[in-house]
């Protein structure tokens, strides 16, 4: 199919899906909503595959957006992001059919779901500044409506305010950046911008770079612009969190990739370093917060921030290496960014869907109240286990290949980079390694404390497995995780078309993602499939070894647990998520800065004897409290001053109007 036909089909399916959800009878609502989102996602996958295959003509509809018109074009880079978004959409659609049947999502949010998905599919298609900004804002607004699905709860409304404010501050940054870019270039189409980017003054380019990176970074959750992400993603309903964390944040990366790397780039070396530093700070801060979080969905949201940080590290490395003239390794870094992006979409959508399933079954999100879900919800437990394995970046999980590629590019960047690179690269390796280690700790906590052991609350005790539609949705995502974990070669055809479009990958030999991962200019190799086979063989060998003397063993029996001889254990004696993370919290005390209250009450007669000890520890986002609180306070103070001008007198308002008119006339003259 050609470009215009695909674009028309996507638009038509979206409108039909939204209308169908609005018109569907109540009983059929979940299925219709699920099918609607699923079909939009499927169209997106088809569109994306067509875009990756190439040869789609640009679409231009002059009448649709006032003054500028709608301009769409799809290259392989857009295609890759569309396939990822579409695939997440299909999975989420199937899952929603089951999730909405629990009555967790009303008609309005369900009808916005296809629109949100279509906007996310549209953003990578945009080929002019106006179209891009239009779709970007539409995506932000529809996501806001979805976050507010359960607006009756106070936390949801708070999250909505944060989401709206941060999204729009980011939008303003992107808007100003792109408008400056377009004004300096004298055109607003992406092809024209690309052609004239090199002739802009360095100051303009850098200003555009900083503004757009800040704007896109706020969407991707880069520290310190991440504050909305761990609030909004957890408060949204399960399927929406999955869409936001697995698809929408990717578009922040897409923005950086499209505008800063492709259109503006290749830039000076400090661009790469700046992106790398922002990514590194985000990765460590995000994973640290995830390691100490006790709310399951908040933990996953911080992990999203962490992974976007890693992707930015890879992008920054690619930019730095391109600027330093090591294109072969830059291509490895760029591959790492793209592979990790796809892997993250797979495991994070699965993680949020499983968390949503637990929330639907128990009404809980607090890990300290979880436990014992494995025998009660085996499918969900398995799904979350696969997601957690991917998120911890260990071999056999689907996050490993991306991190391995990133480490390879960092290690092999050293010889030709100069002193700066020699200092930055080992530190970055340390950052990536610390992120992997702490990510593992966070995921062990989420899976172990959350799903294993014994129930810590009555709700967890009563949990039962979710329905078939939700299980199928999670199963599909788990399948994607499995395939990406052992056979990253499935991405090879797409990457071989995407990389030549990017400055980092043009004109160099590309990494070969076959059964054995071989990298150009790098003497390192790894094979995820053979590693998995090797582990399987090792497990079989170990099993064989334990058969020695098996015949003379008595039959196994079940026995009580060791309680130091002190009677039966209760569920209260288990480690909770808070206690599990306590050592890490103490190690990173200086960064996390928990509010600790310790009050010791003594007996009045005997001051050396302690009557009562009260201990309370609360963790808040340090960046948020130390950076945002003063800003919010300043804005509120400014608003109080401005309020004095609004005294309610009509004469004063008329005077303001007249003064405004005079100023406008003076300026316009």
């Amino acid at each position, binding site marked *: 199919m050609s470009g215009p036909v695909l674009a028309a089909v996507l638009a038509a399916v979206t409108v039909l899906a939204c209308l169908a959800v609005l018109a569907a009878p109540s009983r059929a609502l979940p299925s219709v909503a699920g099918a609607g989102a699923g079909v939009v996602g499927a169209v997106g996958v088809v569109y994306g595959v067509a875009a990756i295959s190439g040869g789609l003509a640009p679409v231009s509809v002059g009448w649709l957006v006032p003054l500028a018109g709608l301009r769409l074009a799809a290259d392989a880079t857009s295609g890759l992001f569309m396939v990822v978004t579409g695939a997440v959409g299909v999975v989420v659609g199937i899952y929603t059919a089951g999730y909405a049947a629990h009555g967790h999502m009303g008609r309005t949010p369900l009808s916005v779901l296809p629109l949100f998905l279509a906007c996310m599919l549209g953003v990578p298609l945009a080929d002019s500044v106006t179209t891009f900004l239009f779709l970007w804002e539409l995506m932000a607004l529809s996501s806001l409506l979805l976050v507010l699905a359960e607006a009756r709860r106070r936390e949801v409304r708070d999250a909505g305010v944060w989401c709206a404010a941060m999204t729009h501050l980011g939008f303003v940054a992107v808007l100003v950046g792109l408008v400056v870019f377009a004004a300096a270039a004298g055109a607003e189409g992406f092809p024209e911008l690309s052609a004239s980017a090199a002739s802009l003054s360095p100051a303009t380019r850098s200003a555009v770079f900083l503004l757009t990176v800040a704007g896109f970074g706020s969407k991707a959750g880069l520290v310190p612009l991440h504050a909305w992400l761990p609030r909004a993603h957890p408060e949204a309903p399960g399927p929406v969190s999955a869409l936001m964390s697995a698809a929408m944040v990717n578009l922040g990366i897409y923005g950086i990739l499209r505008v800063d790397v492709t259109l503006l780039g290749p830039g000076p070396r400090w661009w790469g370093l700046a992106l790398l530093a922002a990514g590194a700070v985000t990765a460590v801060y995000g994973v640290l917060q995830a390691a100490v979080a006790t709310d399951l969905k908040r933990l996953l949201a911080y992990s999203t921030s962490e992974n976007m940080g890693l992707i930015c590290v890879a992008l920054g490395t690619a930019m730095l290496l391109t600027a330093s003239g090591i294109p072969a390794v830059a291509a490895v870094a760029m591959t790492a960014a793209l592979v990790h992006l796809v892997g993250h979409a797979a495991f994070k959508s699965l993680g949020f869907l499983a968390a949503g399933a637990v929330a639907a079954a128990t009404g809980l999100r607090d890990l300290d109240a979880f436990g*014992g879900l*494995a*025998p009660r919800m085996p499918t969900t437990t398995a799904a979350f286990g696969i997601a957690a394995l991917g998120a911890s970046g*260990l*071999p056999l999980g689907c996050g490993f290949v991306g991190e*391995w590629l990133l*480490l390879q590019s960092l*290690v092999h960047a050293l*010889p030709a980079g100069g002193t700066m690179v020699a200092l930055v*690269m*080992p530190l970055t*390796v*340390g*950052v990536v*390694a610390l992120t992997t*280690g*702490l990510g*593992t*700790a966070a995921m*062990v*906590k989420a*899976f*172990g*404390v959350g799903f*294993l*052991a014994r129930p810590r609350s009555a709700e967890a005790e009563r949990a039962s497995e979710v329905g078939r539609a939700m299980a199928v949705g999670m199963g599909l995502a788990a399948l994607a995780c499995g395939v990406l974990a052992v056979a990253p070669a499935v991405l090879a055809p797409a990457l071989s078309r995407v990389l030549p479009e990017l400055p980092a990958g043009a004109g160099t030999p590309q990494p070969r993602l076959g059964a*054995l991962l071989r990298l150009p200019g*790098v*003497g*390192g*190799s*790894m094979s995820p499939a053979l*590693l998995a086979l*090797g*582990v*399987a*063989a*090792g497990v079989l*060998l170990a099993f064989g*070894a334990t058969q020695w*003397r*098996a015949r*003379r*063993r008595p*039959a*196994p*029996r*079940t*026995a009580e*647990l060791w309680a130091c001889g002190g009677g039966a254990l209760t*569920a209260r*004696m*288990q*480690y909770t998520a808070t206690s*599990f*993370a306590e*050592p*890490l919290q*103490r*190690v990173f005390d200086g960064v996390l800065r928990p509010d600790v209250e310790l009050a010791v009450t003594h007996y009045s007669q005997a001051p050396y004897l302690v009557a009562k000890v009260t201990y309370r520890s609360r963790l808040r986002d340090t960046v948020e409290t130390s950076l945002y609180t003063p800003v919010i306070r300043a804005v509120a103070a400014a608003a109080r001053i401005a309020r004095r001008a609004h005294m309610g007198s009509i004469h004063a308002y008329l005077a303001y109007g007249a003064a405004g008119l005079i100023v406008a006339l003076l300026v316009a003259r």
Partner: protein
Amino acid sequence: MSAAGAAGMVLQVAATAAGAPLVVGGMRQVRARLEGRAGAGWAQPWRDLRKQLGKQRIDPAGTTVVFAAAPFLLAGTSLLIAAIVPAVTTASPLDPVGDLFAVVGLLLVGTVALTLAGIDTGTAFGGMGASREVTIAALVEPTVLVAGFALSVPVHSSNLGEIVAATVGDPGRVASPAAMLAFAALAVVVVAETGRLPVDNPATHLELTMVHEAMILEYTGPRLALIEWAAAVRLTVLLALLANLFVPWGVADAGSGTVGLLVGLLAVAGKVLVFAVVLAGVEVFLAKLRLFRVPELLAGSFLLGLLAVTTSYFLAAPG
């Protein structure tokens, strides 16, 4: 893939599997003698394993498949690592399959399996051990990767076989400051990863101070045997890796014949023996660190690793 490489791989897996308990037994014996005890003899771990394998398996109430599968996953990853690392030969056919980063990841997979099993028991000790183990594992990670970075920079490869082979060809590299710093950093890592003093006390009987032992308190019989054996394999493999990374001589390569492989086997066995005796001897003079002092030790070794990378760069850079 050469026949010699494949034979060497089989040989090193078999030798590690059979010899690992003896290494642990030998270390205990050295400690016992230095502390003035008679000791149980160097073959005692094998006698223990035989006894455990003949015992009844006891399933703690309320545990899931995670508890049952963890020992096998731990043993499976340990065997795979034994097949990958250049212990007897640098030409293991699995060498290109997993480089240093993959080996570190596999070690972590085994650790994670055991921590999950510890949590799965639902006891306070299981959770406590898991929490401590994961904290240490998370903080070890930067050191080991940065030290690995230092080693792979001069060779332009992170595959262990190539690193060792390159060191054989260029002996001067061992004496470079970068290699020595990396050695110090990796030695701390091996101590932390295998739960030896001063990070963890493998001989402790007090639950409150345990790390590794607290996670496996509920294991009995054949599963316990498997865990003990896998832990010994990990210790042996890491010692062999450390030995061959910095004292590679004697290791067989793709062209070695039977004699070469036997020499490789004897060489690595001798090196592991020396390293194990030294480690056990040093342990006699050490007390276990407080858990919250361990990060300081690991931060120090991370700095050593970082220095190793920067020296390897500045010494390699012309002018």
